[in-house]
């Protein structure tokens, strides 16, 4: 094939048992730590060209003219493409609403929108040629918030909307609106002894994955294209790419290349169509790699949000009602905004029992950067606000904040505002009890007898800003509610192909799915499932590609549940087939073949009593069993557009945090000392991976509590800090000890009883840190991330 750096099969052969519940090690772990793992940006092909994307320098403008002549005349340039060069009538793409132009047409709607493409024999040549493209913009006023979006004379970000949300939104600059009404919030408010309200602001977070967008498109002899790319969902990409290229889906063959993190930021397309267009135009392989600066424009971010909440409670601490209004800024294109609205509204109540609610969530179209999927979307923003409200209520009632939460905590059987009953364990009160019961880290850890202050344990760290002066400790708690899997009636299935055969005298299983391994450890878990179900030691995980059916997205905490479920399901089918073969061959030799419950263990067919009936090698001989099946979780329903009623979610996920912080109250600097987490995971298929997910999610939540924010100029809608110099993510000195307490209360509806885990820790981490900073400073702090000047008031 001539491609280097593309993925090869991962052989996970091992003599150990390595089934589910064990902390088997990740096959990609050592390679990643030692720098040998091939990421999508490492791919190379003989004779390949380099693609470059020219992006808009303004946020909102009409394109008066584009002159590419000078760029085309540049030596080394093979192609320059604009909107006019798109080959078919399909010129837009999008996850749910196809509103995103492949290349800008007539108008740009946000800073950094792709306008033209260049392919050249060197990346620098491509970049310089792109700089020679002359674009004449006529600038338009920018829409940046709810007021400017819904003003009577507001320019429509998208004119002539024909999408399925257009009919029910109050204004064309609102992507989607989801109210949820249950009970009578006003009447319930009359019963409240205390009412608290607040307006909360959540800043724009970036996924900040370390491997920037990149891929390689290779034109094929049959007129199709082979695309190697780092993404989160191959088949969703395929569905959007093929029509723009004018190719049937079987002529766009996609293979997942090494993914350097995703966190939702790779759900939308980035360079996929662009590279294919250039490859098909030039007849040569084309590689596109964004640099860090471009990456900030190359993917959607977490929706910034304004949230208004009112809660009431009786004197004895029972919640009476909740009203909220959540305004999410979706930016210039819809991306995942409708789903973010669905999650924000349906999870806005948090893990609490409140019978009377009045909820509204909307997402705006603006000229800000497009926002879409990021770990815990919708639920993250809501959790930040409702947890602040819980602390306010507890303070108002002079109650302990944890006891107040426990008094109102949801449990199995709770009826949610959507009318859905929580039908699996919901140990919210227990999770809080566990984090609270943990011993606190010692006070003043920077003091070592007879030694200078250890600044690493202090706010400011090595910057040496305090030796203890002005430092106050604070403690805060939070707990969150997240859905698992795709919701609202989406057909959320996955596919797995499992093959069993004898290779080298040993039974071997091969698992082939299109699941995007983005670092979550799915490849480890699939091998574990195959070992458990098929009793083999050797499992080969094939590279993910579109030669097998869709696995759905690696997002929404769903892959172990859904693709893990599909692997289990296909393994079960393979096992049945193998047992059938065994019965045919050996059934007459032992009555247990007909009467006992049979298992595959240690390479053998055994009875549930442990008696060995046959060796798999003898059962299979030179035959291979090869089965590809789809698997679905329980169906969900859409939310009613007026009342928000409906069994919208598959499963719920819960985590609680206790944050301990030291705040330099004079300089406004924060050191998070410890972020203890307790989470129910149903069943830990790989305990080490579970811990890793919880620690990662916790850290990402910490980031948006104290530093991570994309700053957008409200006057120009331009991004002010598109670099790791000024978009800060936590370093090891910002990352606290994260003790993890894992509960395993099985959900009987899920494979192995497991619960999706990836997102819940991201929810509660942020509000726990904020609560701790409030506890240390006595400040209200209704905005995240907290900046030093918010604490010092300067």
């Amino acid at each position: 094939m001539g491609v280097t750096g593309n993925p090869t099969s991962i052989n996970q052969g091992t003599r150990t048992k390595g089934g589910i519940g064990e902390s088997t090690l990740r096959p990609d772990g050592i390679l990643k730590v030692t720098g040998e793992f091939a990421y999508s940006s490492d791919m190379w092909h003989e004779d390949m060209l380099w693609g470059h994307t020219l992006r808009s320098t303004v946020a909102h403008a009409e394109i008066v003219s584009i002159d590419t002549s000078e760029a085309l005349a540049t030596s080394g340039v093979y192609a320059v493409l604009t909107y006019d060069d798109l080959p078919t009538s399909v010129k837009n793409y999008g996850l749910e609403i196809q509103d995103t132009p492949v290349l800008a047409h007539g108008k740009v709607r946000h800073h950094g929108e792709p306008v033209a493409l260049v392919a050249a024999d060197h990346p620098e040549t491509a970049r310089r040629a792109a700089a020679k493209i002359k674009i004449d913009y006529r600038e338009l006023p920018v829409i940046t918030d709810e007021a400017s979006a819904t003003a009577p004379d507001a320019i429509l970000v998208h004119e002539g909307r024909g999408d399925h949300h257009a009919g029910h939104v109050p204004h064309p600059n609102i992507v989607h609106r989801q109210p949820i009404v249950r009970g009578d919030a006003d009447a319930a408010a009359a019963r409240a002894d205390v009412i608290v309200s607040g307006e909360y602001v959540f800043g724009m977070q970036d996924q900040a994955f370390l491997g920037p967008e990149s891929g390689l498109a290779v034109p094929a002899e049959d007129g199709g294209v082979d695309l190697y790319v780092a993404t989160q969902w191959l088949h969703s990409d395929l569905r959007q790419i093929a029509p723009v290229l004018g190719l049937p889906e079987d002529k766009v063959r996609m293979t997942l290349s090494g993914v350097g993190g995703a966190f939702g930021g790779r759900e939308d397309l980035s360079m996929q169509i662009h590279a294919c267009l250039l490859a098909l135009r030039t007849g040569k392989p084309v590689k596109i790699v964004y640099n860090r600066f471009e990456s900030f424009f190359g993917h959607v971010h977490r929706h910034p949000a304004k949230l208004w909440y009112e809660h009431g409670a009786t004197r004895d601490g029972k919640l009476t009602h909740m009203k909220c209004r959540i305004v999410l800024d979706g930016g210039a294109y819809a991306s995942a905004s409708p789903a973010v609205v669905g999650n924000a509204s349906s999870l806005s109540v948090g893990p609490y029992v409140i019978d009377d609610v009045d909820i509204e969530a909307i997402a705006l179209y603006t000229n800000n950067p497009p926002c879409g999927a990021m770990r815990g979307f919708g639920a993250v923003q809501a959790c930040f606000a409702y947890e602040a409200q819980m602390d306010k209520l507890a303070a108002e009632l002079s109650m302990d904040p944890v006891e107040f939460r426990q008094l109102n905590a949801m449990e199995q059987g709770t009826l949610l505002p959507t009318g859905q009953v929580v039908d699996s364990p919901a140990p919210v009160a227990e999770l809080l009890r566990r984090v609270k019961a943990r011993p606190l880290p010692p006070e003043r850890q920077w003091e070592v007898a007879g030694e200078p202050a250890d600044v690493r344990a202090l706010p400011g760290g090595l910057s040496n800003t305090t030796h203890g002066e002005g430092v106050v400790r604070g403690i805060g708690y939070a707990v969150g509610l997240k859905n698992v899997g795709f919701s609202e009636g989406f057909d959320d299935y996955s596919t797995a192909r499992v093959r069993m055969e004898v290779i080298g005298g040993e039974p071997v299983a091969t698992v082939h799915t299109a699941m995007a391994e983005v670092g979550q450890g799915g490849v480890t878990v699939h091998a574990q499932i195959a070992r458990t179900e098929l009793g083999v030691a050797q499992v080969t995980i094939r590279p993910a590609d579109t030669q097998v059916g869709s696995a759905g997205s690696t997002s929404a905490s769903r892959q172990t549940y859904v693709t893990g479920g599909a692997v289990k399901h296909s393994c079960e089918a393979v096992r049945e087939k193998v047992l059938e073969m065994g019965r045919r061959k050996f059934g007459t030799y032992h009555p247990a073949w007909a009467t006992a419950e049979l298992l595959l263990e240690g390479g053998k067919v055994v009875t549930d009593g442990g008696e060995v009936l046959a060796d798999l090698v003898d059962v299979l001989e030179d035959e291979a069993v090869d089965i590809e099946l789809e698997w679905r979780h329980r169906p969900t329903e859409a939310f009613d557009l007026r009342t928000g009623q409906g069994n919208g979610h598959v499963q719920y996920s819960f985590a609680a945090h206790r944050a301990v912080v030291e705040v330099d109250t004079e300089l406004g600097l924060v050191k998070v000392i410890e972020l203890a987490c307790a989470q129910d995971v149903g069943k830990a298929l790989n305990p080490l991976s579970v811990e890793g997910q919880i620690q990662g999610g916790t850290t990402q939540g910490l980031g948006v509590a104290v530093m991570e924010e994309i700053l957008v100029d409200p006057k120009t809608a331009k991004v002010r800090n598109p670099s790791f110099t000024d978009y800060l993510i936590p370093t090891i000195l910002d990352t606290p000890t994260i003790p993890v307490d894992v509960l395993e209360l099985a959900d009987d509806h899920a494979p192995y009883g497991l619960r999706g885990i990836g997102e819940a820790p991201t929810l509660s981490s942020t509000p726990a840190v904020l609560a701790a900073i409030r506890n240390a400073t006595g400040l209200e702090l209704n905005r995240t991330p907290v900046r030093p000047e918010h604490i010092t008031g300067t």
Partner: protein
Amino acid sequence: MDFLRPARWEEALAAKAEHPTAVPIAGGTDVMVEINFDHRRPEYLLDLNRIGELSEWEVGQENVRLGACVPYSHIMEHLRAELPGLALASHTVASPQIRNRGGVGGNLGTASPAGDAHPALLAAGAEVEAESVRGTRMIPIDAFYTGVKRNALAPDELIRAVHIKKADGPQQYSKVGTRNAMVIAVCAFGLALHPETRTVRTGIGSAAPTPVRAKEAEEFLNAALEEGGFWDSRTIITPSIAKQFADLAAGACNPIDDVRGTASYRRHAVGIMARRTLGWTWESYRGNGRSTEGAA
């Protein structure tokens, strides 16, 4: 872009004389970032890495002569006693990898107001050894920074070394950033006690168009310490004096609002750092150093 690689210092001077637009590069921790982001396209890069002497230092009677390319990690490891302020500043520079590459010569050449070394150099007292084919001159650090990312070097001059006064008393350095490591300064403050001359010197980073000393604050404090007999009595500095010093230091700032912080926060933070670094150095001077010097 031409890449000039002189093997000896004299060749470097000749190259710089011939190509005054050539940008010297050593660790590359500033220059390469600028080039990679296409912020600048110098005609010539003048690579100083082959000139070994630039990575050496000499400890003299009065001064340390620090070669322009001595990496920050060496300053931290080897010059803590002689240059405590600069060693503390070096500790706050970026990451270990960057500290192994970058050095003070680059910080001076770039002359960014956010350069971590500047406040420490200003507080300690230093001279920049600038040289061209025309000869050598010593530029006092106070006169070196001439504007935002501008310095007093002539187009044909290169920085060969910086001569920094050996500490004759305690020194401190503080930097505010919005994370606990690997961060560009929102603002920074350096302070050095000079018991031999009974003076205090300061340096402020990232809170004015150039690195500056808080001269009024220094003068006030020098007078107050003298009048109160503090140098001899070694008693605790009266809180009102410390406060006045901090206020004057804050007043020496001329900051801007930017993505990293607001002007008013910078002013406020410089005041806090001035008070704290004065407290720490004075405690050391009084003989209680062990409990107040920041360690890492």
